[in-house]
């Protein structure tokens, strides 16, 4: 215990922490709990047993007597404020913290030249005339994001904050806004918060970001039914106040004039025209009645759990078909398949957000999180900067690969031989945990024999990775106390995607790196609610809570809740739906919030399938390329405009809260689905998404203890088997759901793309930081200023061979179609490989991509298509 201003308090943390606990107001201007104390401002000076120390940087110690208010300290703070005023025009809130009575007349020497100002960035605004050099911006940029944009130039009174010589927009800034969010003076701010000074927020609403599966918590500031600004929730378990350029800034789409605000129906002339809800719903009801038995639904991983639940309930109970799938099919279905085969559960085994700092080795396989999952990417980067060993498996030199201790830059499509060779080293060099293998796994004896021939030396020619590097990586992983594996779509979107995931799962099964803190297999989910859509049952073979429809006891349980029998016929996956449509076997298709024309592979095939369907209904917020093909378009709500829940990649169910109204006649999607269910003869009684969650909980053992009342704050990580269960951070601590972990033995089946002639190049598609998937939302925000076109990365030597210069338009041609993108010549890609983004519909990136599917989960092989390129003819 120590005493602060006469009050006793426990001696834990810093003196500043202790001061806050007793309510002593100490002006800590340069402090943020997430950053290392730096003591630049000297505002938090307190007296400790006659000595003066800064509270932020001094540990609270037993027996100390601390004074935070005294005449000497008041005089000191006042004088400090006077000194600040000699240097710069100090913001009123800062002066107020220091006592507020400084006048700026005490010190005569004006010690600073006029400060730099910059407005080159679409969001950030810098005015160094307001900078008190507290360096919070610099430290946040370094210690939270890891971007190192800022620097201090000059010495002594010449010291100033700098971002190099050029315009701020030309720096390495990733527009995360961390600097602006911590600046106490307004020296760095952003356009949204400047707008707040004109239009103060009427209220703030906490909700969950919809821009990826990380699940960052947002504090949305609302005025006049518009989102004015978004801040990160400081105490959020997932993001600790941090956000990325999408989550923090890309909200303008919500009030974009392109928003759908009325239902649309196709008129006699074939045009989409505005219609009433009654008319639109009537058309859907008629079509679905007519095509009963030949209908299907594609649900959306961008929508809430409640909405996904309703879509599959509608199909299964209402329409009596298992023809329901979602976009997890085209991203992480192989993760589920692979992990279920290995462990029995398809979800992340650990919590990257909570445990990354515990890991001593981080293995990132086929993921580019600093762009696709930026907040978690920043955490991984910080872990590596803090000393964790980083191993990256990626055909491209991503940002993390550039920082990695070992980058296994494999040839595209060779995950299987590479992972086998890593496992071979683990076994050969005795880097396995025999006690764990004996107690928790099955098949080791066979595995041992199977894996022996896969030594890295024998796979080098296939994978292109030097054997020594593979051995190094295997040793680092095998010798680590807590190796954590994190993977993305580079693992799953392949012919052997599911099997690749199984092989990744072999690594922790061999080394015992599962079932405890800081380890495991952790998929980074692409869309915000991929986990939830699967949990809800938006796949043909598994119902809510992964219940198997063919089991009689499951049928009985669901029939009781749903009041309808569970259909007997198996359903179709998304690719099978397309095939059925082209074969004339699908009469009506409902698509919720997915722009499949732009995002699904082999665009020509997708369009042909959608056109072949007799009746297409699309529920959307914009008239996307897919919605434009529909017979009826229903206007839905963005995540900012409705209530519900999302489940992030670490199984955390978090609340989505309505901040603003949907535009015009648009409605919350759960309401629209209920209306569709009623129109098609299966009325529902739900008045609020919380009631839907109650029904979900009744059907789903892992969510049995979830209810809205328990989801305030940081939500709950499933399994939550009972109402008094705290949730589960780490899976498989005692046993696997399937009993023993299964060591998979998988031989390499090369993709057909690898068999195409030697002259062809290997195309990988993927994402950029500024845009989210098809870009429907982010392209309608100032993020467009930061990135306004799709790019094709190619190696300088390939560029030279083909006579292509950086910035040229390039035609990319495959057996499936062609696309055009702007060349970016870079050695981030290997010779012979290409990388292209698909955020802009005019690029038609997916006109080129393959028809090859994962051999177990039907997920397309986006990460490998054989193509040829040439410079486009001048237009």
């Amino acid at each position, binding site marked *: 215990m120590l005493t602060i201003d006469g009050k006793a308090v426990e001696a834990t943390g810093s003196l500043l922490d202790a001061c806050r606990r007793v309510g002593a107001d100490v002006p800590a201007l340069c402090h943020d709990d997430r950053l290392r*104390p730096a003591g*630049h401002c000297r505002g938090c000076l307190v007296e400790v047993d006659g000595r003066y120390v800064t509270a932020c940087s*001094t540990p609270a110690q037993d027996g100390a007597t601390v004074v935070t208010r005294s005449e000497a300290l008041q005089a*000191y703070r006042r004088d400090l404020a006077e*000194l600040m005023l000699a240097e710069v025009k100090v913001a009123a809130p800062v002066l107020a913290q220091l006592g507020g009575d400084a006048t700026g007349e005490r010190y005569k020497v004006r010690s600073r030249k006029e400060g730099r100002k910059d407005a080159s960035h679409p969001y950030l605004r810098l005015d160094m005339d307001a900078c008190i050099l507290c360096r919070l911006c610099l430290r946040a940029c370094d210690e939270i994001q890891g971007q190192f944009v800022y620097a201090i130039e000059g010495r*002594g009174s*010449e010291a100033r904050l700098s971002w190099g010589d050029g315009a701020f927009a030309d720096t390495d800034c990733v527009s995360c806004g961390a600097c602006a969010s911590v600046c106490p003076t307004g020296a760095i701010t952003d356009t949204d918060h400047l707008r707040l000074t004109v239009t103060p927020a009427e209220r703030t609403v906490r909700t969950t970001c919809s821009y990826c599966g990380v699940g960052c918590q947002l504090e949305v500031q609302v005025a006049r039914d518009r989102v004015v600004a978004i801040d990160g929730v400081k105490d959020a378990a997932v993001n600790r106040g941090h956000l990325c350029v999408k989550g923090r800034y890309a909200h303008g789409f919500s009030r974009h004039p392109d928003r759908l605000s009325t239902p649309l129906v196709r008129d006699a002339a074939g045009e989409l025209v505005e219609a009433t809800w009654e008319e639109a719903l009537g058309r859907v009801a008629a079509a679905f009645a007519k095509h009963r038995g030949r209908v299907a639904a594609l649900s959306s991983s961008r929508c809430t759990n409640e909405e996904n639940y309703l879509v599959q309930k509608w199909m299964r109970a209402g329409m009596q078909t298992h023809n329901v799938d979602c976009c997890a099919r085209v991203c992480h279905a192989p993760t589920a398949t692979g992990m279920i085969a290995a462990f029995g559960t398809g979800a992340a085994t650990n919590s990257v957000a909570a445990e990354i700092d515990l890991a001593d080795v981080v293995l990132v396989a086929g993921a580019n999180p600093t762009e696709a999952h930026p907040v978690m990417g920043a955490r991984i980067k910080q872990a590596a900067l803090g000393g964790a060993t980083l191993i990256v498996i990626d055909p491209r030199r991503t940002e993390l690969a550039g920082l990695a201790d070992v980058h296994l830059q494999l040839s595209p499509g060779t995950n299987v031989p590479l992972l086998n060779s890593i496992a071979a080293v683990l076994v050969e060099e005795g880097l396995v945990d025999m006690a764990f293998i004996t107690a928790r796994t099955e098949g080791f004896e066979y595995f041992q024999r199977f894996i022996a021939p896969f030594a890295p030396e024998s796979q080098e020619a296939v994978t292109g990775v030097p054997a020594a590097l593979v051995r190094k990586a295997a040793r680092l992983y095998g010798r680590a106390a807590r190796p954590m594996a994190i993977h993305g779509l580079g693992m799953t979107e392949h012919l052997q995607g599911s099997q690749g995931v199984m092989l990744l799962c072999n690594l922790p099964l061999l080394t015992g790196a599962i079932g405890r803190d800081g380890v495991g297999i952790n998929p980074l989910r692409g869309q915000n609610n991929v986990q939830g859509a699967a949990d809800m049952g938006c796949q043909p073979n598994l119902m809510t809570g992964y219940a198997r429809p063919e089991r009689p006891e499951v049928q009985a349980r669901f029939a009781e809740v749903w009041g309808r029998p569970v259909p007997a016929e198996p359903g179709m996956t998304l690719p099978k739906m397309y095939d059925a449509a082209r074969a004339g076997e699908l009469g009506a298709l409902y698509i919720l919030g997915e722009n499949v024309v732009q995002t699904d592979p082999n665009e020509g095939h997708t369009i042909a399938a959608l056109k072949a369907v007799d009746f297409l209904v699309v529920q959307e917020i914009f008239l996307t390329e897919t919605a434009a093909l529909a017979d009826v378009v229903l206007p839905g709500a963005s995540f900012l405009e409705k209530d519900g829940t999302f489940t992030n990649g670490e199984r955390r169910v978090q609340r989505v809260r309505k901040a603003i109204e949907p535009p015009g006649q648009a409605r919350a999607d759960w309401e629209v689905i209920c209306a569709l269910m009623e129109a098609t003869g299966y009325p529902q009684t739900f008045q609020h998404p919380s009631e839907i969650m109650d029904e979900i909980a009744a059907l789903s053992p892992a969510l049995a203890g979830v209810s809205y009342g328990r989801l305030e704050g940081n939500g709950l990580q499933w399994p939550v088997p009972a109402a008094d269960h705290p949730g589960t951070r780490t899976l498989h601590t005692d046993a696997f759901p399937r009993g023993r972990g299964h060591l998979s033995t998988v031989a390499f089946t090369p993709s057909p793309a690898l068999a195409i002639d030697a002259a062809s190049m290997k195309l990988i598609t993927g994402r950029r930081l500024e845009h989210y998937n098809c870009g429907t939302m982010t392209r309608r925000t100032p993020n467009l200023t930061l990135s306004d076109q799709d790019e094709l990365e190619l190696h300088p030597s390939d560029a030279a061979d083909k006579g292509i210069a950086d910035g040229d338009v390039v035609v990319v041609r495959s057996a499936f179609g062609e696309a055009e993108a702007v060349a970016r010549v870079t050695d981030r890609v290997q010779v012979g490989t290409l990388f292209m983004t698909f955020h802009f519909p005019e690029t038609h990136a997916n006109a080129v991509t393959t028809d090859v599917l994962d051999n177990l989960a039907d997920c397309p092989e986006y990460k490998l298509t054989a193509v040829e390129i040439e410079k486009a003819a001048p237009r």
Partner: protein
Amino acid sequence: MDERRRVSTARLASFAAARGEGGECEDNAIMALAAGRSEAEVSASYGIPAARLRGLVTFYEHLGVKAEVFACSGTSCRFPNGRGDGRAARAEGAHAVCLGRCYAPPATSRSAAPIPYRTLDTAPMVLAPIMEGTGAAALYALPQDAEAILAPLEASGLRGRGGAGFPTARKWRTAAAAREAAGDAWVVANGDEGDPGAYIDRLLLEEAPHAVLAGLVACARAIGASRAILYIRGEYPEARARVQAAIGEAAAEGWTGELKIRVVVGAGSFVCGEETALLRSIEGLRGEPWVKPPFPAVEGLDRLPTVVQNIETLALAGHLVRTGGQATSKAFCVAGAVASPGVVEAPWGTPLRRLLDEGAGGARAGQTWKMALVGGPMGRVVPASEFDVPLSMEGLPGLGHGGIVVLDESVSVRALAEHLFEFAAGESCGNCTPCRVGTRQLAGIEDAASMERLLRTMELGSLCGFGKTVPTPVRDLIRHYGQEVFHVDH
């Protein structure tokens, strides 16, 4: 806070360098820039953003300066032979804060006069045997066992000679204890002798480098360090050459055993003498002090326990461990209005007047002493009437490194004050508000009450010893000379 999250900005920025070309933090961006590599080149090979490199160039005085010759602007050279208005040598050559040639003012980097060394009387001296040039091999005859090093060191009563006077054995024991968990440790020799008026470290580095290296070996054995760094200020190129030759010789002879010793060279920043700033400079960063705790002896370079020790202290430590004596004497550097400037080793407690009269030949012909600046620009001002003060940490607290510049009657109080203000404003690193802004205000203050208010703010609030001790000589001046401090007469 989770230990793993306690990643300093320092390590984040040096991370790229450490993993890039060069690989080891001793080979840092500052040295690369000082060696003439372009900012663009260094940025690319060390992976350090361009703006950060500009931050280095604008921090370290010698980077980006293409000068053949540096002119000294230390106290003794601004007031050559202890007289004048403090403006001497301002115009010539590029500016450097004290070249360690205070005994031969006004000095440039080309001045080559040898450093005079003498002892005050026949009392047993500590440094004298070292300076007499015992064979180098004998200097390394140290016990292997940590306790056999720490016990005599403790008994010697040795305290750090850099100015803070922290008991040396206690620091080593702290590091030795922290090393148990950390697995390794660092020893860093602080050869950033920046105090104008002090040149004992230069003397030792140039004339007795093996004594310093032996001290490093003793410390490394005591704390279990496998690596050592000798940081030498950029103003001492001769010292660097001598030390590097000595390291080579010692390694060849096997005197330093398994200990790996590297030299890191500074590039012109007084504040780098502060231990946390020194570590950051070694890491290739701006030499800005950082908050303590953690103290370097617990967590320093590579987050390992790191003993940062002044050169004179190390030389003494090795000797005291070997011979078992007491740390009873101090080497004072005398300059200014004396007949025979030089290093004078004298017993602690020797009155200043006796040191000057018997050790430095008394007043220079024709000059009358007015005052002495003892311990550099953040040390003490002693008026001639008080020259009987005993030179000890107790008798004259704040005497610091022990450099003494004696000024004669021609020097106005205001001239000395302005010199101190200029030094303070010029060398403040800018890291914390009271020092960054306060040092710039000093020259504009016109009365004692306002000055005391500002000094109090700097003393209470400054992050490191620099801002905290800038007030010391200013207060002495006001106490002894009152309003003269504010009397601007030019």
